[in-house]
C-alpha cells in the first residue's frame, strides 16, 4: 500500500531502530572513548620509523650506508657517518635525523635497508608543541631495542631475527671454513716440506 508519505515514515522507522538499537546491541554503537579506551592497533600498522639496536644503544645495527637517505621519496632522512679521532670511518652513524613533519610513513626505507636496522613503529602519539626542532627525531630518540621491536611486531620481528641468525651462522660457517682452510694450508706445507 503506497500512501504519499511512505518513504518519509520508513526513514523515521530506520532512525528509530538505530536510536533504540544503540542502547541494546553493542555492534550498533561503534564509538571508542579515546583517552580511556584505546583501539588495539593491528600488528602491521606503521607510523614513523625507528632504529633497532641489539645489545646496547651505542651499537645500532645501522652502518650509516645512506641507502635509505637516497631512496626516501620526500628526502626526510639525514645521516652523517661517525669517524674516530684519526678520521677513519666507523661503521656507525654519528648523526641520524628523521624529520617526522616531512616523513610520509611510506615504509620504503624499511624495504631497501640491507641491514634490517630501520623498522616502522606503531606508536601514534607523536604530537609535539614545538614545530621545528621538536619534530626532528634525533639519533637518541630513534634508537629502540630489539626487545621493543619483538613486543610491538612479534611475527615480523621473529622473521627478521631468524633471517639475521641464519646470515650470522652462514658468515660464521664461512669464516670457520675459511679459517679451517687457512689452518689446513698452514698445516700442510710443514708436512709437505718434510717428505
Amino acid at each position, binding site marked *: 500500500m503506497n500512501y504519499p508519505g511512505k518513504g518519509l515514515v520508513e526513514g523515521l522507522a530506520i*532512525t528509530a531502530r538505530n536510536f533504540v538499537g544503540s542502547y541494546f546491541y553493542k555492534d550498533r*554503537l561503534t*564509538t571508542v572513548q579515546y583517552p580511556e579506551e584505546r583501539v588495539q592497533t593491528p600488528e602491521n600498522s606503521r607510523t614513523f620509523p625507528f632504529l633497532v639496536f641489539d645489545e646496547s644503544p651505542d651499537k645500532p645495527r645501522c652502518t650509516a650506508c645512506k641507502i635509505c637517505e637516497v631512496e626516501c621519496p620526500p628526502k626526510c632522512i639525514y645521516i652523517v657517518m661517525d669517524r674516530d679521532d684519526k678520521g677513519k670511518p666507523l661503521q656507525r652513524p654519528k648523526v641520524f635525523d628523521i624529520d617526522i613533519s616531512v616523513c610520509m610513513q611510506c615504509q620504503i626505507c624499511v624495504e631497501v635497508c640491507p641491514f634490517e636496522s630501520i623498522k616502522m613503529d606503531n606508536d601514534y602519539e607523536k604530537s609535539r608543541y614545538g614545530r621545528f626542532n621538536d619534530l626532528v627525531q634525533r639519533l637518541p630518540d630513534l634508537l629502540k631495542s630489539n626487545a621493543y621491536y619483538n613486543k610491538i611486531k612479534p611475527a615480523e620481528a621473529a622473521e627478521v631475527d631468524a633471517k639475521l641468525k641464519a646470515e650470522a651462522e652462514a658468515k660464521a660457517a664461512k669464516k670457520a671454513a675459511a679459517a679451517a682452510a687457512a689452518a689446513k694450508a698452514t698445516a700442510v706445507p710443514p708436512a709437505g716440506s718434510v717428505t
Partner: protein
Amino acid sequence: METIYQILHTTFANVPAWAVQIAAFLIPIAFIFGVYPAIFALTTLVERKALGRIQNRYGPNRVGIFGILQPLADGLKILLKEDIVPRVADKFTHFLAPVLIVIPGLLVYLVVPVAPGMVAVDLKIGVLFALAVGTMSVIALFMAGWASRNKFSVLGAVRAVAQVVSYEVPTVMAGVAVIMAAGTLSTLTIVQRQGGGLLNISNWYVFRPWGLVGFALFIIGGLAESARCPFDLPEAESELIGGYHTEYSGFKFALFQMGEYLAGMAMAGVTVTLFLGGYMGPGSGPGLAGGLISMLWFFVKLAGMIGLNIWIRGTWPRLRVDQLMGFAWKVLLPLALVNIVAVGFWHFLTPRPLAWIITTGWLVIWFLVLTKCNASAKLEKREYRYV
C-alpha cells in the same frame, strides 16, 4: 494572573494591594523567564545526544555525568568568545537583530496555559496573539540578514522571510479551525473544552478528523516557522553557510540560537494547547495535586513534540526553496481551508457518527485531490539495464 492575585491576596492579607498586584504580575514572568530558557538549554543537550544515538554514537558525555553540564559549558564558552562585527556592517541594526529575535519567542508563552488557571495573561484573544507575535520575528531575521552586508546572509534572510510569511498563512488557518470548534479565542477555555471524556483524553481535538489534519498542519507550520529540518532553508549550511547568522559570533550567536529554539518550542506549546489538550491528562484537575499533575502532563506533551522535531531533524533532508513555497501555497493552504469547512460540517451535523463519516470523507477526498494534482515527488519508475 487573576488566580495568583487571589491566592496571594488571601495568604498575605496585610500586605498593601498594589504590592500584591505587582507580585502577581511578576511571578508568571519569572516563571516564563526561568523555565523556558532552562528547557532550551536542556533541549540543546538532548538534541545532540539523541542525534548522536540515531547515528550510532554517543552524544556529549564529557562534561558532567552524562554530559549534563554541557549546556553550561556551551554557555560559558560562547560568553568568552570574541564578538566580531564586520566593518561594513550596519552597526545599529546588526546589534538590534539578536535582541528582537528572542522577544517574540518569549512573548508567545504568555498565552500558553501550563495548569488550570495558570496562564501568564488570560487574554481573550490568546490564540491570535500567539500567532501574531510569531510574525514579529520576521523583522528580526531580515534585519540580521541585511545588516551583515554579506551576500550569503542576504540570500538567507530573503529565504527566511519568504518562508516564515508564507507558512504563517496555513498555520493561522489551521488555528481558525480550532477556534471555530471551541468557540473562543482564549487558550484557557480551549483547553478546558478538551477536558472531560474518558480519562480526560478522548475529548482532545487531535482525535477529531479535522483536528488530526489541523495537528499535522500545525506541526509542519511549526517546523517551517522555526526554520527546523526539513525546512531549515535560511541557515542551510550546504548552500548558505550560516544564512542570516553567518556574521554573528559570541553571545549574539547564542541569542540567535535561543531565539530559534524558543520559537520552535513556542509553536510546539501552541500545538499542544490547541490539539493535544494543553494540561488535560488522566490526573489533571483544579487544586494543588491536580495542578501539579496537569503541569506534568503539559511538559510531557511539550517534550514529546520537541522529541518529534529532533527525530525528524535526524532523518529527513531539506526541501528546496521553490518546493517549500509550492508546498505551502499549493498543498497546505487549500488543506487548511478545506479543514475549516470540515469543522463547519462537524458543528452543524448533530448525529455524531454521521458527522464523523461526512467530515472524514470530505477531508480524505480533498487530500487525494491535492496530492494527485501536484504529485511532483512521486518515485518515477526507473529501470536500469546491466551491460
